[in-house]
């Protein structure tokens, strides 16, 4: 074993955090760049039809404090974000950060809940298929998961709503309604979580990845040795065959799940960031969509940082190179 590549865990972690920070800086530059290149600026939208484009409009711009040069704009936006000031929505005039924290928790609940649903369904199927191979139980189960994953999530949402309304007679009563309706309300909150967890394509990918990785680990020599010794195969296969593939696939699917929330929140009228992003794209509400894009990237990077930490915790001797090879 080559011990030269081994670094202290703390140093590797510090490096990962630095890389994450650097990437987020890049994200902010890309977000700003796209909107800077956009034809027309938000103020022309704000003033559209209310004021002539000439001198009075210019006066309003200056009164609102629009800096002119791009780098001044970028730096002041970046500095504002560090102080927690994401600007104010053009349409509503409310501060973006407050709006985002108001709805961000709902999206976080939706995202984490749907991940849990995905794993609850995918892990047993994948492990069974990895251990037993293709047989008459695992094949139909895997196929069913593929089919559900390929269903358009927006249609699946309507089917589930219809079933609950007409078949089970459960109604999504308006929130804050009095009395005994809370039971059905809470049940209704579960629907988007389940729909996002089962639909949206994540399910089949988790099954595929976990099945392949676990299958590969189970055919390794050390598992055969463990089996011959009568030791627990699960204990020997857990880290390499379960923990790492699961964190890998979950971290790499976070962007995809966040994209799915845009649609699911639309179907279920779930007051979250996805709906807010949709509304902002419709209104060309630049500060809101900028804030959401940056926050979403923070979510994604946090997930991937967590995955690296798990990987390093499992295998402290991992040099940078092996971490990259696993990620590829």
């Amino acid at each position, binding site marked *: 074993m080559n011990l030269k590549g081994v670094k202290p865990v703390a140093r590797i972690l510090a490096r990962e955090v630095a890389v994450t920070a650097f990437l987020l800086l890049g994200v902010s530059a890309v977000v700003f760049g796209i909107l800077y290149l956009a034809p027309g600026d938000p103020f022309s939208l704000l003033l559209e039809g209310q004021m002539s484009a000439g001198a009075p409009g210019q006066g309003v711009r200056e009164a609102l404090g629009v800096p002119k040069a791009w780098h001044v704009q970028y730096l002041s936006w970046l500095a504002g974000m560090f102080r927690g000031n994401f600007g104010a929505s053009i349409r509503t005039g409310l501060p973006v950060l407050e709006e985002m924290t108001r709805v961000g928790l709902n999206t976080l609940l939706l995202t984490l809940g749907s991940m849990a649903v995905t794993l609850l369904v995918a892990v047993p199927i994948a492990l069974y298929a990895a251990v037993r191979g*293709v047989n008459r139980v695992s094949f139909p189960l895997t196929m069913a998961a593929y089919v559900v994953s390929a269903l*358009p999530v927006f249609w699946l949402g309507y089917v589930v709503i219809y079933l609950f309304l007409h078949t089970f007679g459960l109604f999504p009563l308006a929130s804050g309604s009095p009395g005994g309706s809370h039971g059905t309300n809470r049940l209704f909150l579960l629907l988007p979580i389940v729909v996002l967890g089962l639909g949206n394509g994540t399910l089949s990918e988790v099954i595929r990845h976990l099945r392949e990785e676990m299958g590969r680990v189970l055919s390794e020599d050390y598992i055969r040795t463990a089996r011959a010794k009568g030791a627990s195969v699960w204990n020997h296969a857990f880290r390499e065959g379960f923990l790492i593939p699961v964190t890998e696939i979950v971290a790499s699917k976070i962007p995809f799940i966040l994209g799915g929330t845009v649609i699911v929140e639309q179907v279920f009228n779930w007051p979250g960031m996805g709906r807010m992003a949709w509304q902002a*794209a419709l209104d060309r509400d630049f500060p809101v969509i900028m804030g959401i894009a940056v926050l979403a990237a923070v979510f994604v990077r946090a997930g991937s940082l967590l995955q690296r930490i798990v990987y390093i915790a499992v295998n402290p001797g991992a040099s940078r190179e092996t971490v990259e090879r696993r990620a590829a």
Partner: protein
Amino acid sequence: MRKRYVQAPGRTDEASGLRFFRKAEAVDLFFVGYGLLIVVLVAASYAAGVFRLLPHDPEAVNLDLMLAPPGTAGHLLGTDFMGRDLLARLILGIQAYFLPGLLAIAVAIVPGTALGVLAGYGAGRADRVITWFSNLVDSFPRLVLILLVVAAFKPDIYFIMVVVGLTNVPATVSLVKVKIRFLREKNFIEAAEGLGLPRRTIVLKHILWHHCRASLIIRATLGMGEAILMETSLSYLGFGVQEPTPSWGNMVQSGANYFLQGNFWPSTVPALAILLAILGFHLLGDGLNNLLERKAVY
């Protein structure tokens, strides 16, 4: 040509492994066939559009026959809320995603392969820059990035598909990079280098043509599945293909208003079409993967 699998010596599970492969072969052929059927249907859609073979004008409104169920005389799959024929709209809806999807695939594969070669063959610095770029692109949820672009440019579907393609570049890059890293240590590449073959020949012929072709074709079929999902999702959200031009996404969306009243068909027909098409391209990829990749003996 019969396939032959080279068996590793000393494997104890040879017999059961072989049986698994034989079984898998039939399944793979089924998948490939099913995927190809989808491809044929796409071609048929264009033929129908060009030669005017559609059963009805897909945009002809017939207010006497709104929300007709499937099997109504003259309307095999029924009609939507404006009495437009669902089958005709379904067939024409294929064109909403197919060419944009091809564009997304081209954007993902061509620059992705070039960058992958650069990263795999280039010195450490090129690799670091490209890896950083890949990580940057992967930091954005795709749909959020597209909403950002929609807000900024109000783009058409082709512009959006270029962005979708760009978000798929990192996957191609890492695929090609890993392949090259793996192959460079092989004897035949070393031999080719030792013989003094130009690097261009080695990269284009020995690596890309002989060893990456299959994986890239598979990536492309998966890319088409993703493009369908993206196009239908965006049309559903109202940012893609606009009414009255049919797209499977906006068909589901407009039919959804009548879904809760019990008129399932206007949105279920296009939803099932989306399901079958995405599944078709995914299974085509899976089947090709198993058939082509295992055949390659290194």
